[in-house]
């Protein structure tokens, strides 16, 4: 038996039987090991003090004796608790129902116009809503503005919904820049036979796109 086993055995002895004796092997170990002998003495002292406390408590008398006739029947005691649980369950169900009602309440979707688009010369002077803009099916608007060679500048303008726009980007992106008066348009043919706008319109559109 080593020291750890000895300590374990001594504590077990105190737990199971406070006044119990040591095993022969444990007694043999305690005779050889001084620290274990001291440990055994400490535990024995502790056990004696426990016994003294227990004997002191055994002499104590209760100031009153329980009278069972003063206690209500089981059912009377238990009934309020049952109703308490029922009330709590009903309250929880009501809260749950209210939460479901709020969550699934029908809501109207508000359509808001998000910001004005350029509409300087729009005849109606109306701000279209975003949804209206998105409904305009413009697969592609292309602006080709080459400022390097002013003579060869081609600006592709389209008229969409009464507004002449210079489109950039994909179908969901429309940047109206300037109205375009189709009556003043003077197409000319150059030497190569290309269709061109006159110079004043080109410069105007070029400034706008810049």
């Amino acid at each position, binding site marked *: 038996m080593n020291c750890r086993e000895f300590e374990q055995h001594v504590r077990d002895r105190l737990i199971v039987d406070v006044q119990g004796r040591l095993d022969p092997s444990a007694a043999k170990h305690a005779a050889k090991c001084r620290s274990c002998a001291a*440990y055994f003495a400490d*535990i024995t002292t502790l056990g004696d003090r*426990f016994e003294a406390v227990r004997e002191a408590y055994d002499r104590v008398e*209760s*100031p009153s004796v329980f*009278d069972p006739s003063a206690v209500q029947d*089981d059912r009377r005691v238990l009934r309020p608790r049952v109703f308490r649980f029922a009330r709590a369950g009903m309250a929880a169900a009501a809260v749950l129902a209210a939460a479901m009602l709020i969550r699934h309440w029908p809501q109207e979707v508000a359509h808001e116009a998000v910001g004005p688009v350029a509409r300087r010369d729009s005849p109606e002077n109306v701000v279209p809503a975003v949804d209206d803009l998105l409904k305009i099916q413009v697969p592609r608007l292309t602006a080709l503005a080459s400022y390097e060679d002013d003579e060869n500048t081609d600006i592709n303008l389209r008229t969409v919904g009464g507004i002449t726009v210079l489109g950039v980007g994909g179908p969901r992106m429309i940047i109206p820049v300037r109205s375009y008066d189709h009556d003043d348009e003077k197409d000319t043919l150059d030497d190569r036979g290309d269709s061109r706008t006159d110079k004043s319109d080109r410069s105007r559109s070029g400034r706008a796109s810049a």
Partner: protein
Amino acid sequence: MTGGPHDQEEKPDFAELSNRVYRLCLSLLGSEVEASDAGQEAMVRAWSRRGSRRAEVSWWTWCGGFAVRVCREMWRHRQRDRRVSELDVHELNPAVVREGLSQDDTTRLHVSVMQLPRRQREVTILRFFAGLSVQEAAQVLGCPPGTVKSNLHKAIQTLRRSLADRDKLDELQGI
């Protein structure tokens, strides 16, 4: 009480049972007034719910379980209210314990037990002060006997260390 379902069963010795429950509450709480209240409350609860008691559970361990639970509640209220009883003063100020109670080994041991963690304190009191076996203490606390034993091992180690330290301190003061 008339017509109850438990009228046919044997009645315990209420005087002896009240004494044992009161002693257990006194050792758990350390206050006679609180122990009297706790003992009465535990007996009322135990008797009101006697229908749930299994046949193999003795009246003493049945009532002891309620006593432990009532004492836990009172202990918690005491800590919440910060009510200072004599025992609290000892717990809060170890110097008072050393100077005022060093001559009384029994009181000193009791105070050391009260300073243990809750689980260790309860198993120590049930086993050594109330004289229950490990099995009975496990029944009262509603836990396996192995848990009771492991807590007792820890408690014994702690108590042995603290009492040895105080004995050394007494010897030094004696010199």
